[in-house]
C-alpha cells in the first residue's frame, strides 16, 4: 500500500544523531551488564569469570518462575482490558469544542502523576477505613482489604494500572481516528454500511499503526512495572504482587548479587524483546488484506 521509496544511503547521515545519542546511553550500560553477568563480583576490584553459571542458576530459579507467571498474567490482563477500553473511549470522545479539550486534559492527568506518587495516592485511596475506593467498597458490604487478601492486592494493582495507562491508549487511538479522511465515512454512508462495518472495515484498519505502538508500549511498560506496586503493596501480601522487576531489585539491591542479577536482567530483556518481536511481526501481517 505504500509507495516505493527511493534508495538513498546518505539518509544514514540524518539518522546518525539518533544512533549516537541512543547508543551512548543504551549500548554502554548494556555491555556493562553483559560484563557483570559472566562474573562473580566479590568486591570493588575483585571478580572471577564464571561464564554461563549465573544464566543456568537464573533459569532454574523457582521463585523466578513464579514471578514470571505472575508477570505474564498481569501483562496479559493489562492488554486485554486497556486496549479495548482505550479504543472504546477514543470512539466515544467528543471530536470538537470545549468538550474535546476538557476530555483530553482530564484523560492526560493520570499520565502526568509521577509513578511513586501514583502508588502513594492509591495506598490511601484504596484503604477501607480512610480511602474513597476502599471505604465505598466496604460500605457496599464487600470484604475488601488490599494489604491482607492476595486477590484484592492483585486486583488493586491491576485497576491502578488501568487507571494510570488506559488514557495513553485512548489518546493514541483518538489521534488515529481523527486522521481518517471524511470521504471514507461518506463512502460508507452511501453504501449504507452498519456502525459495526464502519468500525471493522474503516476505523480498525486505519488504527492499525497506532494500535501497534499502543500494544508494544503497554506490553513492555507493564512487563517492567516496578515503582507503583512497590509503593502500593511492597510486593505482598506474600508474593501476590511481586512482579519480575521487584524480584530482580531484591536480588540486585537487597542481596547485592550483581552477577546473577545482571544475568537475570538480560534474560528479562530477551523475553521482552522476543515477545515484542513476535507481536510486531504478527501485527504487521494481521489485517493487511483488509484495505487496498
Amino acid at each position: 500500500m505504500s509507495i516505493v521509496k527511493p534508495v538513498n544511503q546518505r539518509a544514514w547521515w540524518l539518522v546518525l544523531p539518533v544512533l549516537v545519542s541512543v547508543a551512548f546511553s543504551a549500548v554502554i550500560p548494556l555491555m556493562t551488564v553483559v560484563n557483570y553477568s559472566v562474573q562473580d563480583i566479590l568486591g570493588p576490584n575483585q571478580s572471577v569469570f564464571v561464564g554461563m553459571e549465573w544464566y543456568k542458576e537464573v533459569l532454574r530459579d523457582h521463585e523466578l518462575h513464579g514471578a514470571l507467571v505472575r508477570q505474564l498474567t498481569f501483562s496479559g490482563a493489562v492488554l486485554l482490558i486497556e486496549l479495548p477500553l482505550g479504543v472504546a473511549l477514543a470512539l466515544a470522545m467528543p471530536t470538537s469544542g470545549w468538550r474535546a479539550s476538557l476530555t483530553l486534559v482530564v484523560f492526560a492527568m493520570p499520565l502526568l502523576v509521577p509513578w511513586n506518587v501514583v502508588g502513594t495516592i492509591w495506598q490511601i485511596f484504596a484503604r477501607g477505613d480512610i480511602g474513597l475506593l476502599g471505604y465505598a467498597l466496604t460500605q457496599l458490604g464487600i470484604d475488601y482489604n488490599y494489604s491482607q487478601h492476595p486477590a484484592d492486592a492483585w486486583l488493586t494493582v491491576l485497576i491502578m494500572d488501568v487507571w494510570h495507562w488506559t488514557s495513553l491508549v485512548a489518546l493514541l487511538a483518538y489521534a488515529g481516528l481523527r486522521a481518517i479522511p471524511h470521504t471514507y465515512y461518506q463512502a460508507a454512508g452511501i453504501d449504507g454500511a452498519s456502525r459495526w462495518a464502519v468500525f471493522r472495515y474503516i476505523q480498525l484498519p486505519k488504527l492499525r499503526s497506532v494500535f501497534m505502538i499502543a500494544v508494544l508500549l503497554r506490553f513492555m511498560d507493564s512487563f517492567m512495572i516496578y515503582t507503583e506496586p512497590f509503593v502500593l503493596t511492597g510486593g505482598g501480601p506474600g508474593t501476590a504482587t511481586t512482579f519480575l522487576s521487584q524480584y530482580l531489585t531484591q536480588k540486585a539491591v537487597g542481596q547485592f548479587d550483581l552477577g546473577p542479577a545482571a544475568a537475570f536482567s538480560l534474560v528479562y530483556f530477551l523475553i521482552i524483546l522476543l515477545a515484542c518481536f513476535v507481536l510486531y511481526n504478527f501485527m504487521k501481517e494481521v489485517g493487511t488484506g483488509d484495505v487496498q
Partner: protein
Amino acid sequence: MSHGMSARPLPGRTLLLVLYFVFTLAPIYWMVHMSLRTNEAITSTFAWLPESLSFASYARIFTDPAWYDGYINSIAYVALNTVLSVGVALPAAYAFSRYSFLGDRHLFFWLLTNRMTPPAVFLLPFFQLYTAIGLMDTHLAVALAHMVFNVPLAVWILEGFMRGVPREIDETAYIDGYSFPRFFVRIFLPLMKAGVGVTAFFCFMFSWVELLLARTLTSVNAKPIAATMTRTVSAAGMDWGTLAAAGVLTLLPGALVIYFVRHYIAKGFAMGRV
C-alpha cells in the same frame, strides 16, 4: 458534526465517558482532598469532603527551597530532554519516511528495543557512565539518560506525521533550488507543527514521571521533584498532606502542555511504518 458517519455516536457513549471520567477523577480528587487536610485528619477519619481547608501543605512547598527547587530542576531537565529528543528525532524520522537505506527496518525496530531494559540493574552502569564523564548531578545527565526511551518514541510518532506530507512538496522545493537544510527548516517544519507538538507532549510526559534514573543520576543540584517527594517519609511518619499537595502541583505543567497541543491531537495522526 456534519460529516455523516463519523458523527453517528456509539450507543451508550455518554454513559461510558461519564463513568470513565468518574473513575479517572476519583483518585485525583482524593489527592486534592488529602492535600487540603492535616495529617491527623487524613489518617484517622474518613470524610467525603475535607472538614476544613488547610493550605499549610501548599505553603510549605512554595516557601521551602528544597521543595520548589525540585520543580525547577524537573522542568529544566524535562524541557532539555524534550528539545534534544525532538531535535535529533526530526531528521531521522524524515530519513525513515522518505528513503530506503541499508538496515532501515532493523534500525527502526532496534530503536524501540531501547525501551525494553528493566531499570534495576541498569542503574549502576548508568551511574558509573555518568560519573566517568563528569556529568553526575547535572540536568544534562538526566536529559541524556531519558533520551533512551524518548528518542525512539519521538521517531515513531514523527515518522507517522511525515508520511502524511506528500512527497511532491519535497520535490518541488528541490527543483526550486532549495538545499536540504533550508527546505527542512523553511518549508517542511512549518508543515510539521502538529507532529512536533504531539511528540513534545509525549516526551515531556515520559520524562516528567520517570523516577529511578532521575534519582540515580542526581543528588542535590538537579534533584527532581519526584525524588524530593520521598523526603515526606520520616521517622515521625508519613507527611501525606505535603506529598499530596506536591502531587497536585506535578499535574500542572503537563496539563498546560496538553492544553496547548490539544488541537493537534484532535486533528489526528497515524503512526509509524507498519
